[in-house]
């Protein structure tokens, strides 16, 4: 079978659906007609699409934390706390066993969590909870729910959560495979996500608008904006082909105000242009992820990283921001830490939103670079697939035209090496097989050289490790001048 970027036929879809629903006991009772009636009965404020539309109309940045625990009761408490603290959109983070379709393991974890009254799973095992549990959760929470996970094959999960009235699903065949798995082929993950997208397309045909959101930040570690934006737009195109109409494209902060703003502007404008060019009518929104890399251990310092994100998200005119917490470095954060993250984010967002009209930052240079690079990547991917985006994507990962730094997948080359320049922006030290012209490559090299001179230090593995930890350390550079200061 060669996967192509073509809308799945009803026949293909329903044939696959039968297998999907039979893969675990909770899938068997699902009926699209019954789900339609349930979804149709939900009020507007339970719809991601509607809440996003309202926010766009009012220039409001929506806040969404992360969080999932094993039990229904625990998840309710968590989400109620999020709402109390001021979150607008609800996440249900799915546990890692479910993400790998290890439902038996998540079942065990769930029963142990119920017995010990302490979550031993790192998320909510939605497949095990099934329609009953997931709908109960949905009915008890006044804001819209989204599944956030990392499943290369999240088909059964998608069936169950949408049927349960969760009106958004995060992920995609690239973004939930390459950064999340070691051995899953792109062929398989893209095919499986075509199914998830087609499912949303079918609901759309029934008049139910569900939101889809490719996972923007990928490995969350020094990913050059043009790489993550190109992949976001590609996943958007793949989703659109399957009939998705309400799409959120995300970007993970690199901790550099100007580059982050430029990246968000580029993502929004290029995506809009490209969807139009290929004839897709998409209701687009954008998502800004606060720094996803290594966090400072001191809570007080973590607050600075969070607040930098909120500031930049507002300046980027993002529609939604995904939040971090002051406990981030400690592992999975508590409800209290999440509430602190929401509150500090909301406060910064309000203050900056109040004065946004007076802030003019020049990002033109950075914007031009990201636009050019992103277009080069997308064009080459299409070219590589002889016009077919799925084949283009698979082949481009194989030959390194698409390459995500620090990704665990064996289907990723890992030849691209990012590094910060003298002004803190993320540049590319090793281009691997990225389809950049010499003009772009020279630009990266020049800027990296400026840093090499400034720090009087080699651009090597050691510098890259510093860069991975630079936001958690505060300073991006080892400044000699710093020593002089200590008088």
């Amino acid at each position, binding site marked *: 079978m060669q996967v192509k970027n073509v809308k799945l036929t009803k026949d293909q879809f329903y044939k696959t659906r039968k297998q999907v629903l039979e893969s675990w006991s909770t899938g068997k009772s699902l009926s699209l007609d019954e789900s339609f009636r349930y979804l149709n009965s939900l009020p507007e404020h339970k719809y991601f699409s509607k809440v996003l539309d309202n926010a766009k109309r009012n220039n409001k940045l929506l806040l969404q934390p992360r969080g999932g625990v094993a039990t229904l009761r625990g998840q309710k408490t968590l989400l109620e706390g999020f709402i109390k603290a001021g979150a607008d959109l609800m996440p249900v983070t799915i546990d890692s066993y479910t993400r790998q379709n290890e439902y038996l393991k998540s079942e065990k974890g769930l029963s142990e969590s119920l017995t010990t009254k302490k979550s031993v799973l*790192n998320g909510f095992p939605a497949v095990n909870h099934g329609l009953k549990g997931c709908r109960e959760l949905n009915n008890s929470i006044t804001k819209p729910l989204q599944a956030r996970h990392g499943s290369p094959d999240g088909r059964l999960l998608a069936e169950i959560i949408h049927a349960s009235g969760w009106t958004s699903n995060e992920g995609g065949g690239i973004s939930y495979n390459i950064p999340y798995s070691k*051995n899953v082929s792109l062929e398989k993950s893209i095919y499986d996500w075509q199914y998830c997208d087609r499912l949303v397309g079918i609901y759309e045909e029934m008049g139910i608008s569900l939101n889809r959101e490719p996972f923007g930040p990928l490995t969350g570690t020094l990913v050059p904006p043009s790489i993550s934006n190109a992949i976001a737009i590609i996943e958007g195109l793949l989703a659109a082909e399957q009939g998705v109409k309400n799409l959120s494209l995300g970007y993970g902060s690199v901790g550099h105000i100007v580059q982050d703003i430029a990246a968000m502007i580029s993502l929004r404008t290029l995506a809009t242009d490209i969807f139009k060019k290929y004839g897709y009518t998409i209701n687009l929104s954008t998502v800004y992820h606060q720094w996803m890399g290594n966090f400072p251990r001191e809570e007080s310092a973590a607050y600075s990283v969070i607040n930098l994100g909120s500031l930049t998200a507002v300046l980027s005119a993002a529609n939604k921001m995904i939040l971090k917490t002051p406990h981030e470095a*400690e*592992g999975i954060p*508590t409800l209290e830490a999440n509430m602190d993250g929401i509150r500090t984010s909301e406060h910064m967002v309000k203050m900056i939103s109040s004065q946004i009209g007076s802030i003019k930052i020049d990002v033109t240079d950075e914007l031009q670079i990201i636009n050019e690079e992103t277009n080069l990547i997308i064009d080459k991917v299409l070219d590589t697939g002889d016009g077919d985006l799925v084949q283009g994507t698979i082949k481009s990962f194989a030959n390194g035209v698409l390459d995500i730094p*620090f990704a*665990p997948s064996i289907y990723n080359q890992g030849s691209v090496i990012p590094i910060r320049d003298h002004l803190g922006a993320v540049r590319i030290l090793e281009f691997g097989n990225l389809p950049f012209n010499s003009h772009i490559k020279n630009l990266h090299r020049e800027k990296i050289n400026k840093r090499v001179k400034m720090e009087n230090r080699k651009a090597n593995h050691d510098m890259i490790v510093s860069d991975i930890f630079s936001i958690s350390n505060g300073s991006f550079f080892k400044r000699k001048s710093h020593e002089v200061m200590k008088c």
Partner: protein
Amino acid sequence: MNTDNTIVMGVIGQDCHSVGNKVLHFAFKEKGFVVHNLGVQCSQEDLIKAAKEVNADAIVVSSLYGHAELDCRGFSTNCIKNGLNNVLLYIGGNLSIGKSEWEVIERKFLKMGFNRVFSASDDLEWAIDSIYNDISLRKFKHPVSVTENKDASQKRKVN
């Protein structure tokens, strides 16, 4: 200085945190270890099999996603079952869900048979030095296995 300390390392379970794994790999290599890095999403079987193959001095397990306890059950017993009586076991990362007392977590994993338990906030240099010293001490006490180790690792040196 004996630079032939051989370790097998990997991220256990369904955990896909690859950045720390790559940084750790680099740090062990810098310190002169012979590193067999299995990457993310390793099973106990993967790690044990590799440790046997390369006659490893230690298995360094990491876990960032909170399922460490579930993923590591019986690990020590399985090592012994597979004839790895002398291998040192280490684990580090974010080892619980929610903010638990570190002492409680540490005790739990020590009881499970790990020789040391590192938290995500422990200093990396210090952690690697501790492992280095443990291995040296063990070799000093069991000189036979040292020789075995040496041969094996020289045969299979990967760098």
